[in-house]
């Protein structure tokens, strides 16, 4: 089943030089293993292919039900050198939440994961 990251996680991002970090946090504790299993370093690197110039690193924080990604070469030089609107990587968080995961149907059903056809949680609260 296709599962949008925005429906199962929230996130915050920041900068350190030319590297952006994105912390991704499961919306429910029982959904953390889904992040750990399917939101791999390679999957995120593929997502940001052509957007960042460097490598991707992943760290796990099971205690916080969170993953931390470092996106190198993400900020056009970083800090004051950058010409980007998002020079400090503040909204790389939501860029990552655009990612769609493939989760086996049985696993998605047992965890009650929202399917990609549903209106995203953050939009739902606004539109209704």
């Amino acid at each position, binding site marked *: 089943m296709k599962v949008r990251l925005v429906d199962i996680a*929230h996130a*915050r991002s*920041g900068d350190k030089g030319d590297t952006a970090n994105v912390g991704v946090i499961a919306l429910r504790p029982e959904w953390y293993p889904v992040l750990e299993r399917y939101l791999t370093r390679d999957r995120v690197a593929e997502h940001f292919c052509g957007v960042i110039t460097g490598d991707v690193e992943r760290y796990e924080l099971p205690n916080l039900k969170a993953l931390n990604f470092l996106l190198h070469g993400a900020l056009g030089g970083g800090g004051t050198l950058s*010409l980007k609107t998002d020079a400090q990587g503040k909204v790389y968080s*939501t860029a990552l939440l655009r990612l769609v995961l493939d989760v086996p149907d049985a696993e998605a059903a047992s965890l009650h994961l929202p399917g990609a056809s549903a209106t995203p949680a953050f939009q739902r609260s606004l539109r209704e």
Partner: protein
Amino acid sequence: MSQTSKQPDGRVVRVASGQGFWGDWLEAPRRQVEGGDVDYLMLDYLAEVTMSILQKQKERDPKMGYARDFVGAIESVLPAIAKRGVRVVANAGGVNPPACAVAIRDVARKHGVSDAVRIGVVTGDDLLPRLDELIASGHELANMETGEPLSTVCDRVLSANAYLGSVPIVEALAKGANVVITGRSTDTALTMAPLRHEFAWAADDWDRLAAGIIAGHIIECGAQCSGGNCLYDWLNIPDLANVGYPIVEGCADGTFVISKHADTGGRISVQSVTEQLVYEMGDPRSYITPDVIADFTSIHLEQVGEDRVRVFGIKGRPATDKLKVSIAYRAGFKAVGTLVYSWPNALDKAQLADRVLRERLKNLGLKLDHMLTEFVGASATHGPLAGDPGDPPEVQLRIGVRGNDKASIERFTREIAPLILNGPPSVTGFAGGRPKVEEIVAYWPALIDKTVVQPRVEVLT
């Protein structure tokens, strides 16, 4: 309060965050001391680039070079300092803590409370006068990101400051200071030092020191842990207009609760605190500070009441023998110009304008090292991930250039406005006038041996 060793273990020390960066809400410090009981007010003014801005100000006027907002902040909390015993710890000193101290002394005099304000000044972080000597004696100060030695930009360095830890702040508090002003201290030390002072944590009590650091990390960005910039359930976070800034309620054992004053807006939840914990994080097992290495994978959070999150279980490891150094250097010039194009086909019009402008800049033979075009409303922040924007009501064309040749950057700023009359149609949004040329002061992070840096503490009497 300073007789910590005689205090019972059950005591709670409240450290309130009143400023998350220079430019944060001016109301916050006063609201934090008037909204309820607090023991310490922690004010963080220094971001990576702030030191260089302050250094430029000091070059123009030797009495400047500190965060001037701090003077107003102190003025707004003077009654709490003088009458209720609230103590303030701030890195407002920037590149000139002594001048900042004089400004605070003058404010205290003006309000007739000189006797009640004892200013502690922490210096020793400024390495600029010693830079040549340090490089000559083998300290490369290589860029932590690129590995380049500092000698490549040496002639362009504006400021160089070591990040100091909690030790000199604790010393100032122990000497009786109730307003402690530092230069480049770590943001987290401003919170950890009062807890360490009050509970007399030993220099090798790694777990508690790490807990104090993590308490500092949670509240160092002000309301960013209490509902501000919080994505989780953002639409239902109550009363952001009246947002409550966070307070650490610290215990001797290193556990603490993040809370905020009653009758304030915002929200403190496991989710809001977690978002702040992962902010600007690197390797979570090794959050390196001058005092201790904190392990973020040991943190446990528990909602223990409305707007109350308990933090416990934190582990730390011995600190390294290095200090981080924040160096700022001149790195050329930049300018950013914008124009807004409207429906129909706003994005096509903006793209055509970009092509026209680039051709003109090329024909002028300008020396530009880097040029970036963004289409705000279509792809500026998420790039190709944003997908097809359709036919939006408007798109802002945003073009930035960077280079060492100031004249070329100047010339670029004069090429934007002509597009209004001689470029694609349906263009507006140029009321701001010609773009400004800005000198770039870039950040150079490096490491230096701890033994080279000697913090100094002075309490003014």
